[in-house]
């Protein structure tokens, strides 16, 4: 589904200080219907503080946060937004199903509808058998799935997920990723944060990379990779190895037997490189890839500090 241009959330140059520490510095982005925005960066970069400002838990010191939910522009409409906080827990003494029903009712669903949807989600998240158990009897991963369900049960227009994959095993990570993709299909705007960039880059449409409270890179994943990534080529070949060494279009060549690894400098597209392969080289295997987001991040941050 094409990304619609309708912005549900606009974050404009928000800054938040805690005493002397600037936790977030002039960060801007917007979340659109049917798109997943990844707020990525290392621990302590200001991701959670930014999300808490969106949720109205903190007020920004500077800048503005605007919502367009339910046809109205302006302040946060708590019924149209779903939130999975980083610091999360549930009432240990309450049962799984009744907890979900309660939280959904607080989002404005009536009791019957809340119950129907809660049962549906518990089944989809493999928790159907746990409906009448107490929260305290769940494992941490299971509890996390219940919290995730609570954030999306009421079919909000905007879902804010703070580190949704931390503490979840790989199988359930995939399950949650599937659900997030479904949300996008349905036209929900999703904002998620993660410090595991490589884990979520495939999921996101747009990215804001933050470091020390400031956005260092932002845009669509493709555009960022296009602008910052040089391509890495891995080649198995036969024939004239000297021809490869003479090729001026490549950088950082390393040859190990019949395997060669090198980079394409900026401006050289994979297409032009492949078409212009030197004579005398017989290609057995070839892969041309862009570096993972994590490497781009490290390059950018280190470049900026130099």
């Amino acid at each position, binding site marked *: 589904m094409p990304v619609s241009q309708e912005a549900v959330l606009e974050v404009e140059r928000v800054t938040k200080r805690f005493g002397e520490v600037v936790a977030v510095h002039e960060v801007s982005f917007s979340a659109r219907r049917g798109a997943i925005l990844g707020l990525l960066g290392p621990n302590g970069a200001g991701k959670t503080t930014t999300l*808490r400002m969106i949720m109205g*838990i903190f007020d920004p010191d500077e800048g503005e946060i605007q919502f367009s939910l339910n046809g109205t522009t302006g302040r946060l409409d*708590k019924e149209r*937004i779903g939130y999975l906080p980083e*610091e*999360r*827990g549930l009432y240990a003494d309450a049962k799984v199903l009744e907890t979900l029903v309660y939280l959904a009712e607080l989002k404005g669903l009536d009791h019957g509808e809340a119950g129907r949807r809660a049962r549906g989600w518990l089944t989809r998240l493999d928790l159907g058998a746990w409906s009448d158990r107490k929260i305290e009897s769940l494992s941490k991963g299971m509890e996390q799935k219940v*919290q995730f369900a609570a*954030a999306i049960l009421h079919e909000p227009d905007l879902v804010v997920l703070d580190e949704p994959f931390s503490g979840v095993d790989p199988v359930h990570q995939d399950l949650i990723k599937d659900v997030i993709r479904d949300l996008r299909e349905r036209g929900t705007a999703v904002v998620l944060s993660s410090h595991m960039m490589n884990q979520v880059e495939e999921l996101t449409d747009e990215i804001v990379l933050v470091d020390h409270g400031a956005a260092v890179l932002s845009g669509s994943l493709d555009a960022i990779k296009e602008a910052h990534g040089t391509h890495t080529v891995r080649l198995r070949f036969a024939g004239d190895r000297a021809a490869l060494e003479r090729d001026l279009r490549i950088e950082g060549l390393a040859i190990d037997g019949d395997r060669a690894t090198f980079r394409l400098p900026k401006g050289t597209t994979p297409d032009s490189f492949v078409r212009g392969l030197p004579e005398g080289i017989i290609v057995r295997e070839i892969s041309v890839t862009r570096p993972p987001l994590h490497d781009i991040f490290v390059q950018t941050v280190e470049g900026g500090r130099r």
Partner: protein
Amino acid sequence: MKLGKVVAWEFRRAARNKQFILMTVLLPGIIGLAGGGVALFGGAADGAARTPAGPPPPFLVPMIFAMILFIGAFLNGTMTLYGVVKEKANRVVEIVLSSISSRELMAGKILGQGLAGLIQVVLWGAVAAAVISALLPGLSWHLTPVQWVSYPLYFALGYLLISALFATIGAGMKDVQSSGAQFLVGMIPYVPMMFVAGIIQQPNATWIRLASFFPPFTPGMMMIRVSIAPIPWWEVAGTILVLGLFDLLFIRVAARAFETAMLMYGKNATLRELWRWGVRRRR
């Protein structure tokens, strides 16, 4: 109405708590058994000696109910405080506050837990009343209209006040083990109990009349004063009004303090910080 949902939820959780059920049933059971025992055996032994003591003093019944109020309110306040601390410690607070305001949450906790506590207290009161009338057959249960109206109001509002005070203290605590000087704030309403003798002797002394308008003292002082002497109607109405307003104010203070304190894991808030968070204006 979302507040209603929060109240119902907190009430259900409070009433299902095993400790709570035990306290509710066990205490009146003990009182009932002990009272019954005294009435049966003690009464038979010195029944003759007791009658000449004359009619019991008029303040006895309100004293006993004030005691029940304060014991019940203390237990309930402690439960509310633990509920608030647990809410922070469980990290459930950020999820809940993404749907409702901290004020709805705090008011819901105080009212929901309080409702469960009131049922407990009414049960205790009924048992106590039965035991008293069995032990003191000559006791008059006649109440004046002012007493009929004012007792339940002082009781309920005093109860709410103590809950709100404890909830505010809970908002600043990092876990259930830690408590210090903050706890003493919750004890302020108990201070009039120390002056019971003075209040009984001079229920309309100026300092007592003035102190009755200090909301934390109002329930303790007024329940006793109303029962032993005629009090001007405007004083009764005035103290009830001030107490009611103070209750509303303190639920607000509890909510504000909670809102600020909820993201401070790790550290106990000082009284000064609690006060500042409680009364500051939101930008």
